[in-house]
């Protein structure tokens, strides 16, 4: 049974990752190219993209590789989380549970960290603070998961009226307490930054949306066959 869930998660994750890669290729890549042009115009400082260890074409291929591997990882973790929450939390209907869990995952793993520490295009970000920023990002992600878990437990006993405020309070306190990161150079185009970040959020929305839907679809098929 868990093996079925796991394979279903990996399959749904691979499809989700590929489609997220396609979204990134079509929507996000132009903004990365624009940011790299700015980075190269500024020249010198930091991590250069002109050193050609991997060509820009190679990096476009690498985008699909990265999103597909990421999709597989998320799909596998999603499947194990699904096996745990099934019958314990959330809707009793299997498909509704898959979609709900994907929405919760997107909320906790993507949206909560994104609103505090959004991703940056090339030419933004100080290489010297990468370690610190990575830790803050992971802490925020962990708090997102904690808030989701707390909300699920509270929801089961007290309903949405208590679960939603609990989630917001936990996340809100973390936002207030954790330090902000502001490394966008003043001359970096605001519109490009906005477009890049929206496309980054869009890629994640595609990934989690497709993951939940395909997982739900496979659950339905399997049930019909049995």
């Amino acid at each position, binding site marked *: *049974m*868990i093996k079925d869930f*796991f394979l279903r998660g990996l399959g749904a994750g691979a499809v989700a990752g590929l489609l997220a*890669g396609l979204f*990134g290729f079509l929507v*996000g890549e132009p903004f*990365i190219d624009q940011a790299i042009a700015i980075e190269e115009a500024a020249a010198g400082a930091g*991590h250069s*993209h002109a050193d050609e*260890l*991997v060509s820009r074409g*190679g*990096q*476009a*291929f*690498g*985008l*699909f*590789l*990265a*999103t597909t*591997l*990421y999709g*597989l*990882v998320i799909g*596998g*973790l999603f499947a*194990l989380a699904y*096996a*745990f929450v*099934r*019958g*314990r939390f959330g*809707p*009793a*209907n*299997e498909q*509704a*549970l898959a979609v709900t869990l994907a929405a919760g995952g997107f909320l906790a793993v*993507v949206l909560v*960290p*994104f609103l505090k*520490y*959004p*991703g*940056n*295009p*090339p030419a933004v*970000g100080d290489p010297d603070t*990468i370690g610190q*920023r*990575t830790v803050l*990002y992971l802490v925020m992600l962990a708090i997102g998961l904690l808030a989701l878990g707390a909300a699920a437990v509270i929801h089961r006993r007290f309903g949405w009226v208590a679960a939603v405020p609990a989630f917001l309070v936990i996340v809100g306190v973390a936002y207030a307490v954790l330090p902000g990161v502001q490394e966008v150079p003043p001359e970096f185009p605001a519109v490009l930054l906005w477009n*890049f*970040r929206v*496309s*980054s*959020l869009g*890629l*994640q929305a595609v990934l989690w949306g497709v993951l939940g839907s395909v997982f739900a679809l496979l659950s339905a098929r399997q049930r019909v066959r049995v």
Partner: protein
Amino acid sequence: MSQMSSSPVIPVRTLLPWSAAVPVLLIVAYLVTMDSAGVLASAGDFLHELMHDGRHLLGVPCH
């Protein structure tokens, strides 16, 4: 729609062996999303550069 008891709970005891998959998945996630230089030496640099655009668009902290 909401017929309860349609999904029997899987006991934690049954789930536990599958938690072994978690570190494996997290290592893959690490290679994709984090600064991998140093983990696989030059292969790490190559992977890091190869998946550069993906990392930016996935929204994880980057250089």
